[in-house]
């Protein structure tokens, strides 16, 4: 084959790949464009700092749902990080029937629809406590986030060279202290990415919050009372018949999207990543 023919073939191939990848990006781009164009006008300082106004009244913001989301995420992180890291550590350090069982359970958990998790949280927490609460929402989100954290921890730990653990032990350190002072700190970047990935995952969850956090038009910091969340607000406002609420739903979607995008970029370009 002549060089010329080969070069033409090469060009065609490259062009095909490029157009195919653009095609896959197209839906994402369309979503981005739509959300930005529709939500842009809703964004203002008030949007972040004011509570919602009744339909028809101009102004107001979504402060209640932003704070609510942050509270829910905080509860989910506080619950899922210790358990997730613990599970990940257990899975990477142990072999045997128990460990395989735990691994299967974690994988199954990852596949459970989030609305089912919401129902479970409703049964376990909302019913006994006799009311919707941020706590129940946080627990539901923690369960959804748990497999991600556990997985990330396990995979990071498995990838750490065994020589690191050996180095700790060979200095006369106990197993526990070696894990605490050497293994976990070395795995920190990987665990952190896992946590952020989990946060990105739960930040947009709506279904499990329907029967747990429930929603709340007022600012609430009490974990035992219902709270609003950004995705919940988007759901409620979008379902409403009021056009200014529709407008706010677009704005809230934009906020949510930027937040999740931000987390993903942080995971990618994390400042903690060495070299």
């Amino acid at each position: 084959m002549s060089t010329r023919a080969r070069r033409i073939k090469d060009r065609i191939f490259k062009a095909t790949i490029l157009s195919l990848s653009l095609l896959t990006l197209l839906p994402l781009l369309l979503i981005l464009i739509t959300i930005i164009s529709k939500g842009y006008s809703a964004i203002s300082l008030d949007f972040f700092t004011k509570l919602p106004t009744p339909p028809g009244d101009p102004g107001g913001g979504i402060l209640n749902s932003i704070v609510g989301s942050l509270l829910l995420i905080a509860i989910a992180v506080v619950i899922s990080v210790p358990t997730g890291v613990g599970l990940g550590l257990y899975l990477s350090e142990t072999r045997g029937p128990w460990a395989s069982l735990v691994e299967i359970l974690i994988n199954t958990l990852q596949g459970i629809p989030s609305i089912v998790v919401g129902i479970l949280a409703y049964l376990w927490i909302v019913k006994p406590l006799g009311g919707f609460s941020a706590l129940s929402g946080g627990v539901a989100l923690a369960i959804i986030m748990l497999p991600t954290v556990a997985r990330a921890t396990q995979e990071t730990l498995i990838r750490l060279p065994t020589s690191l653990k050996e180095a700790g032990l060979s200095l006369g350190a106990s197993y526990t202290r070696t894990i605490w002072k050497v293994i976990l700190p070395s795995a920190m970047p990987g665990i952190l990415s896992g946590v952020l990935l989990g946060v990105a995952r739960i930040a947009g969850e709506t279904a499990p919050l329907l029967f747990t956090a429930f929603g709340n038009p007022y600012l609430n910091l009490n974990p035992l009372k219902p709270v609003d969340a950004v995705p919940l607000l988007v759901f409620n406002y979008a379902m409403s018949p009021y056009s200014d609420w529709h407008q706010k739903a677009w704005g809230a979607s934009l906020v949510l999207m930027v937040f999740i995008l931000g987390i993903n970029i942080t995971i990618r370009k994390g400042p903690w990543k060495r070299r």
Partner: protein
Amino acid sequence: MEKEIILETIDLSAAYGDNWVVKSVNLAVPYNKVIAIMGPSGCGKSTFIRCLNRMHELLPGTKIKGQVLLEGENIFDLPPTTVRRRIGMVFQRPNPFPTMSIYDNVLAGYILRGEKLSRAERDEIVETSLKKAFLWDEVKDSLHKRGTFLSGGQQQRLCIARALAMRPDILLLDEPTSALDPKAQAMIEELITQLKETVSIVLVTHNRAQAARVSDYTAFMYLGEIVEIGPTPQMFTAPKDPRTEEYLTGKFG
């Protein structure tokens, strides 16, 4: 003779599952000498020295028989952490702790064991250990940088300093230069010959020339057994066992 020996193995055998890779080894380590264990890959030499600081038993499914006497005391009757504090180890690949500074790496043993030291003690230990490991001049201005930024040879010397910081009686070196370039290797060899003034050394190597250059005694290990042991010059000029002769002349391994 009795008090010239710091460490002695008596019929020491070690296995992975039912595969006995070290078979009834009797070996005595004298004070302030370098004893090299050479042999082809898979002859059990690494497993053997990993028994000496109770690292072998960390892997699942391993077995050990026999005794290891450290100044007359069987190490299997002592807590592993005590044994490992007194018998330091340096591994094939340099493994400084990536999250710690050079300074903390040297002190890692104390930090990990939770032994508190005063500022002055810490400074003193870091300086003397790094000096003993021929690393002080190269790192004294960057003690608080991470150890992982050093070159391979420097990292390995940092690991030696880290082991020396615990003031061990014995230092086990498991192929300490096989991941290093010739220049770094030469430096570590020079270091080994100096270190024996303060510590007894067991060096495992598949590098015959290295055993010849740095050790006082050489043992040849093959298929899990010590075939022959003797003063290094004698082992390299007139070995008694035909298998040693064959190994030294490159007929196998």
